[in-house]
């Protein structure tokens, strides 16, 4: 079964119309995003959605080239990677490439910046569009001078005719036009042995802007006449506003109080006035009482009691021998709690309703699907809703970005003519963002005499891992509280819970089932979706099985692997950790997965020290070996992997969203602690270069293996098998 995704096809006609240049021969009945099976030979990446050169790049009068991507910069360095491939194919200096991030009506509609897909989708589209542009520009020069192609040289945005001193810039050749040709699958790419930028650790230009304190984030926008807004959330998910006493609500600088159903927001002149108004507004609002959240019970047991929709993910052979447990079978149950994105900067958006058009500056991961959802929420024509992507604080998933944009849009429409800056406070983000779902994961397996797995049964219980707007206003927090509310649609099975639920090992008989429930907390996509929980469980279980089979844990995995690239990352990891000495109460654990079973290969080792008296675990070192196919920017991929491992270690050892009967009680960094410097280990990443293979999504590959490597290391250090996250000192002690 395939995971579903937002379908940008719906918006395509509007995008093309807005460009005002509908190219003849352009198929509007193209393939669906989620099942992109274009006719062969295939156009790579997002070209299947948008195949004209000028949808992806524009030649500027000053000789530079502007690349248009439908993806967002999230800190993953996509802007730089895309500039690298464009500069490479067009033989430009890197500084001559400007990258325009996702904007409705301006950039291609590439759906979401998610699933580690930006290199595979966007950078590959840009690479081919730039190569097609190069080919076309050379043809034009050839025609202009009536010369032979071998007489032409292309460099730094100019084409010169050898031996004549004649030079034309790209812009001169185009004479005010852009390249409207379609990109053909047969377009000739630059030979990889001639690369100057691709595969090199090029510095990101935005980091220097950051250290200089330049305007980088949506939080930094200061528009003329801008006013400040805060939203007043209910005390509980289902609480409704019974009354709001506006007559006694008076605070300095108050410009407007927006009350629409149970949506309440305040607008003030100065920002701190909005903070004060938000606090005081809470005292003027009366809310209905709601059913209590399920507290006082073990969440791991509770989620298995909820009604589920159950489906088989994949099966092969028979697993009936597992029904008679004996000395050759093993079973175990694992649990991960709700975890939060916990962006360091709470979400922010700026919106301006002027004339009949709404403009929203947002750090959403998908401008088009959010545009469609906001338009429906406000009953507006999507063409009158313009969203511009501006980077925000790192999220690695669906945090409050879309919701705060909806909040800003609602306030802007109620307070037209002025830019409204809507900033969530820390508590708003912690208590209202959609979390990564709690998951229960049950595994059973049977070994033969040689220690090989013959049967495998795996079942997982999870809420959805995707409630992104996807054009549906019911997925926007504020829309649920309006006088005419929109209900959340729920996505159940399609929500990515079963990502990586199938082990990437050769097992003759297996059965994998997913049971989706609707749990007590709001949930959506958190970095790697279900893969974190599934790989934690599968790779913990593989470790338990290796002990039962009396095999080295890496050898045990290798003997079940048929993919030589999987074997290669594990062999390399084995070489690295072989020479590492561990002292008393120290241990090294390993794990492996291939992200989504189709993307980056990642083998992780972790070394921990356990204080047996207190149960405290210190992560000392972590290593990863990854094979991401062709790598555009090795430093970018190393940065992503290091960071992913530190983040996953924090999830695994510290993090759990807690709630009381009323609402989420993890409302700040004290009630939801994450790793600080004293917790952070040294991290070493080894990249296996595969320059001639396809690039593979990499940004989320380390999340699952890191969790498993850590609990496996705790087992090696202490003999304690941790199956319930986060790791609790009382379970490690003794």
């Amino acid at each position: 079964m395939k995971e579903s995704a937002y379908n940008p096809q719906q918006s395509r006609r509007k995008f093309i119309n807005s460009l005002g240049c509908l190219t003849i021969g352009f198929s509007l009945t193209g393939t669906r995003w989620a099942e992109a099976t274009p006719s062969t030979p295939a156009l790579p990446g997002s070209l299947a959605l948008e195949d004209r050169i000028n949808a992806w790049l524009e030649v500027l009068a000053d000789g530079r080239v502007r690349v248009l991507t439908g993806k967002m910069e999230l800190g993953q360095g996509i802007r730089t990677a895309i500039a690298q491939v464009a500069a490479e194919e067009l033989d430009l200096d890197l500084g001559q490439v400007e990258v325009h991030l996702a904007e409705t009506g301006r950039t291609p509609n590439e759906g979401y910046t998610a699933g580690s897909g930006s290199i595979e989708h966007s950078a590959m589209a840009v690479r081919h569009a730039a190569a097609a542009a190069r080919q076309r520009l050379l043809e034009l020069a050839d025609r202009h001078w009536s010369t032979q192609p071998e007489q032409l040289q292309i460099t730094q945005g100019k084409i010169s005719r050898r031996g004549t001193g004649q030079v034309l810039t790209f812009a001169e050749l185009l004479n005010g036009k852009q390249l409207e040709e379609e990109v053909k699958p047969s377009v000739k790419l630059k030979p990889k042995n001639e690369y100057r930028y691709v595969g090199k650790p090029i510095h990101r230009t935005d980091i220097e802007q950051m250290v200089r304190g330049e305007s980088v984030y949506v939080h930094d926008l200061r528009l003329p006449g801008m006013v400040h807004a805060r939203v007043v959330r209910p005390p509980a998910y289902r609480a409704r506003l019974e009354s709001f006493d506006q007559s006694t609500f008076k605070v300095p600088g108050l410009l407007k109080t927006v009350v629409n159903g149970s949506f309440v927001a305040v607008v003030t002149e100065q920002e701190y006035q909005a903070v004060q108004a938000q606090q005081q507004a809470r005292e003027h609002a009366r809310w209905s009482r709601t059913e209590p959240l399920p507290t006082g019970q073990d969440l791991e047991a509770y989620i298995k009691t909820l009604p589920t929709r159950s489906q088989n993910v994949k099966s092969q052979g028979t697993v009936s021998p597992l029904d008679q447990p004996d000395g050759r079978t093993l079973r175990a149950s694992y649990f991960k709690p709700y975890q939060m994105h916990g962006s360091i900067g709470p979400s922010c958006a700026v919106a301006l309703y002027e004339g009949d058009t709404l403009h929203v500056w947002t750090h959403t991961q998908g401008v088009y699907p959010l545009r469609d959802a906001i338009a429906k929420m406000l009953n507006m024509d999507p063409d009158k809703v313009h969203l511009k992507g501006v980077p925000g604080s790192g999220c690695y998933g669906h945090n409050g970005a879309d919701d705060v944009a909806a909040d800003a849009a609602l306030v802007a429409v109620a307070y037209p003519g002025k830019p409204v800056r809507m900033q969530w406070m820390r508590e708003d983000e912690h208590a209202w963002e959609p979390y990564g779902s709690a998951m229960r994961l049950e595994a059973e397996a049977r070994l033969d005499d040689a220690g090989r797995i013959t049967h495998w049964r795996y079942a997982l219980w999870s809420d959805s891992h995707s409630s992104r707007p996807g054009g549906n206003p019911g997925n926007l927090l504020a829309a649920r509280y309006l006088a005419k509310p929109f209900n959340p649609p729920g996505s159940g099975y399609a929500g990515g819970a079963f990502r990586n639920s199938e082990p990437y090992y050769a097992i003759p008989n297996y059965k994998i089932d997913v049971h989706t429930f609707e749990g007590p907390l709001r949930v959506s996509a958190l970095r790697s979706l279900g893969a974190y929980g599934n790989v934690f469980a599968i790779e913990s279980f593989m470790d338990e099985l290796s002990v039962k089979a009396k095999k080295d844990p890496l050898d045990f995995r290798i003997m079940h692997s048929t993919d030589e690239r999987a074997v290669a990352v594990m062999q390399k990891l084995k070489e690295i950790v072989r020479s590492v000495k561990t002292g008393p109460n120290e241990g090294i654990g390993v794990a492996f997965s291939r992200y989504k079973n189709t993307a980056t290969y990642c083998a992780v080792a972790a070394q921990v020290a356990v204080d047996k008296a207190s149960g405290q675990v210190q992560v000392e070192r972590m290593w990863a070996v990854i094979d991401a196919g062709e790598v555009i920017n090795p430093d970018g991929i190393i940065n992503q992997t290091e960071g992913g491992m530190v983040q996953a270690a924090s999830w695994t050892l510290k993090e759990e969203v807690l709630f009381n009967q009323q609402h989420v009680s993890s409302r700040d960094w004290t009630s939801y602690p994450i790793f600080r410097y004293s917790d952070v280990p040294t991290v070493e990443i080894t990249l296996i270069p595969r320059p001639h293979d396809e690039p593979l999504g990499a940004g989320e590959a380390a999340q699952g293996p890191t969790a498993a490597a850590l609990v496996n290391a705790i087992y090696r250090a202490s003999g304690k098998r941790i199956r319930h996250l986060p790791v609790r000192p009382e379970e490690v002690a003794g």
Partner: protein
Amino acid sequence: MEKDLTLHVNGKQHTVRIDPVTPLLYVLRNQLELNGPKYGCGHEVCGACMVLLDGVAMPSCKIPVESMEGRKITTLEGLTRPDGTLHPVQRAFVEEQAAQCGYCLNGMVMAAVALLEANKQPDDAAIRAGMERNLCRCGTQTRIMKAIRRAAKES
């Protein structure tokens, strides 16, 4: 309620008319239009809003602006020399590419500058202790520690 207050920020005097209880952060960002200090938690526990107060790295998200008169305030912008040359710590962050989203970077740089002022050659434990108040969600702490060691070596 509003009052004229004189602040000494990045080597210059600024007079702002503001409610004196307003936390320093909001004045720096909105009245002085500085992007460096960032709103993160409002509880002085994440470090995103750090500035140097008389050379000491301090959160600016709670402290009332009226208590800042007479203090020497330096923000991220104030570390850069007038000719645009970066401070060694800023330069080291670029060289080590010590950021992902970069939202925490302001506080990280300010805390690192204060750390290196107090301890020219901090060891690993001293770096961790000096940076303990600052949170990063992208997991760039290992790179930031490398940047601090580089800055210590080069300055």
